[in-house]
């Protein structure tokens, strides 16, 4: 309670462990219906897997089982690809483009209508805070469907004087960090351009993709236009290697991306890869510092750092390094780590035990390399997979925590002196997906963005996504663009 007595402060330190605290504000689980078991969605019907095998899918925040999903084997993949091929030949490529648009609009609207349920499932299955699935994942997914629905009957304007044609059957493999959003990124442009789809969601986060299958049924898409099959790496491999697939779109690790590129080499399959990243976020001494700090925080701790374009390398100009580090430390003390279903949670659960182990391995490496570690003092739940927000200072460019993708809430902070130096260091990585520049000077922004080898460069902001804006990488971050006009090209031949 408030008092009027004068408080004396001995040390210059802000105390974020306040007397006034937030009460728990959990979102209700009952907003979502999750079946006990899910089959494969092939040819517009739910079909039992040939293998008769199912695997558990859990809530990483509690380690409790949510449901079990079918494990598709080669025979199931074949069934799905055949269904997609039939749908392509018999219906989808024949119907007028404006009819395709209607179906996609319908999907977009149903996603919006069911946004609360989808948000709850996304959070339960993936561990991300409900605030993010509610305010970012689901609305952005719906926007992607709306956006590409608009393109379906306007392809001749998108590519004037070029005759575009769909490819046929697209095999799409998506990651676990933004399950529904990645499904939307993949399915929406494929359908708009007249292709049919076999989509495989990630092993750990299949549930919203399966809900999307229900939505696709409800939208009354012709059977086989979208097929959704669940499984692990072998299922994905079977899809990649299937001779009936005309296009592979993959988002995931660089390691698997390389395997896919090898597997599709010498075939007719068109390929787009969106792989790893180790983005540089650069703060110049003339930057708006408080907003830059906030941008760095959102750049690395958004979705527990499970973001391929996360700003995981921070370069701060030496003259302001102390101030920026102090502000970052203060800011991470105010981040709430815990139950992803709580509306006040900023950082939820790490997606899987395996990923938590990877992150912990890198924390150990960083310490061994002599970097100084700072972690927030926020208590973390005993059960479930959690990692507090972490900063590494006293870091060198040659450290593994600077060179390798950690894919967790871990920020490595380096300093620089001149523009040329920071450009060289920022580009000194096998990746090239994204980058950020913070400065008050417009000309400096353009100079930097021109010289930065990254698919996306954000200026005075970070992690902004819009369906109209293309996204994709340079170098080992992949090739091809998703989103915007460019996103159509990956699904067309001319």
């Amino acid at each position, binding site marked *: 309670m*408030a008092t*009027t007595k004068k408080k004396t402060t001995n040390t210059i330190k*802000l*105390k*974020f462990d306040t*007397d006034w605290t937030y009460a728990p504000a959990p979102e209700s689980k009952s907003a979502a219906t999750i079946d006990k078991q899910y089959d494969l969605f092939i040819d517009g019907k739910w079909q039992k897997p040939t293998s008769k095998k199912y695997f558990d899918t859990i809530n990483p925040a509690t380690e409790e089982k949510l449901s079990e999903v079918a494990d598709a084997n080669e025979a199931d993949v074949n069934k799905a690809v055949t269904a997609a091929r039939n749908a392509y030949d018999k219906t989808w490529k024949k119907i007028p483009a404006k009819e395709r648009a209607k179906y996609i609009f319908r999907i977009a609207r149903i996603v919006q209508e069911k946004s609360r349920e989808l948000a709850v499932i996304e959070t339960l299955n993936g561990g991300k805070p409900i605030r993010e699935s509610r305010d970012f994942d689901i609305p952005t997914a719906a926007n992607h469907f709306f956006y590409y629905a608009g393109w379906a009957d306007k392809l001749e304007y998108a590519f004037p004087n070029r005759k575009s044609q769909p490819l046929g059957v697209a095999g799409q493999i998506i990651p676990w960090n933004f399950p529904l959003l990645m499904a939307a990124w993949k399915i929406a442009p494929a359908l708009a351009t007249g292709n049919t789809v076999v989509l495989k969601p990630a092993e750990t986060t299949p549930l919203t993709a399966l809900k999307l299958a229900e939505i696709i049924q409800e939208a009354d898409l012709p059977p086989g236009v979208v097929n959704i099959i669940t499984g692990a790496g072998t299922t994905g491999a079977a899809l990649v290697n299937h001779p009936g697939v005309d296009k592979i779109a993959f988002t995931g690790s660089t390691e698997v991306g390389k395997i896919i590129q090898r597997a599709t080499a010498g075939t007719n399959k068109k390929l787009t890869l969106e792989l790893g990243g180790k983005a540089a976020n650069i703060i110049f001494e003339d930057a*708006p510092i*408080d*907003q*830059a700090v906030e941008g760095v925080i959102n750049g690395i701790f958004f979705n527990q750092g499970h973001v391929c374009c996360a700003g995981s390398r921070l370069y701060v100009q030496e003259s302001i390094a102390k101030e920026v580090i102090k502000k970052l430390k203060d800011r991470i003390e105010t981040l709430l780590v815990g139950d992803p279903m709580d509306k006040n949670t900023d950082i939820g659960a790490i997606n899987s035990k395996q990923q938590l182990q990877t992150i912990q391995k890198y924390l150990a490496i960083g310490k061994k390399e002599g970097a100084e570690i700072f972690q927030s003092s926020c208590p973390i739940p005993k059960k479930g997979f959690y990692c507090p927000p972490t900063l590494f200072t006293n870091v060198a460019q040659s450290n593994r925590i600077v060179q390798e993708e950690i894919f967790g809430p871990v920020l490595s902070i380096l300093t620089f002196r001149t523009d040329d130096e920071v450009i060289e260091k920022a580009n000194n990585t096998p990746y090239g997906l994204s980058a950020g520049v913070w400065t008050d000077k417009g000309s400096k922004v353009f100079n930097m963005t021109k010289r930065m080898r990254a698919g996306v460069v954000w200026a005075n902001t970070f992690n902004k996504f819009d369906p109209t804006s293309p996204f994709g990488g340079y170098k080992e971050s992949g090739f091809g663009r998703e989103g915007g006009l460019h996103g159509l090209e990956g699904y067309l031949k001319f």
Partner: protein
Amino acid sequence: MALASSQNILPDFRLSPRIDQIGVEERAARFTTRSIKADAKMNGLLLVLNMIDLTTLEGKDTPGKVKQLCYKGMHPHDAIPGLPSVAAICVYPSMVKIAKKALEGSGVKVAAVATAFPSGQAPKDVKIRDTKFAVSEGADEIDMVISRGKFHEGEYNFVFDEIAAIKEACGTARLKVILETGELGTYDKVRRASDIAMHAGADFIKTSTGKIQPAATMPVTLVMLEAIRDFYYKTGKMIGMKPAGGISKSKLALHYLVMVKETLGNDWLNNEWFRFGASSLANDVLMQIAKEKTGLYQSANYFSVD
């Protein structure tokens, strides 16, 4: 950037940190996504009530009106026992004596707006006299306005010297410096004016007079809280914050509390260091407190209008 190495050396105010408009507005919006429920809501509401500078600043103010407001400040709603009083009653200098007498022994402070409030368009000696009069009548706190015209002209030394002179005239009274952010135009200028005011001796910085729109907003208040944070780190001196005008609903006031909690922390979460300048906020807070206690919203007719 360009911070003075010692607190005795004044910074070049032209080099005050720059503010990115989009960034600061996004950050401010993020505070409003905090969900304040149950105990957090009740405790927050009580805290808000206790932080209010209950204000009447009208040409038609009379001793009768001020006395009624003072009673309300001490006894916001006796139907609910155990409620805190407000922090202060904010009046024109001519009403200070009346308020001081009415509030005697209650702990509720008397704040007076001085320095040719709200425009500040008067000679410095008039402003000093205005201030000294209010203090001599018993004001515990002085809410001054800065010379916005001079500020826009780039006469930062003038603005600085004026604040320093008023601070001296205040004696032991605490000085709140009103920037009138609605007339400053950009967040960069809000930040610069905040830095000038704090270095010149402000005990509090305050957004607005309430006579100009826009008055307090969350992004403007955030810019000022961040200025206070930087000043604290540099000098070790705490400065108070008072958003004023336009905060009339409990929910918005709770968002402000979230912002203070997550920007400055525990030391500022009391009415020694944070105030709301408001007139109609109190009744909305009372209505919400009654709702939390009884589970029902009561008619506005159950809460006194002063």
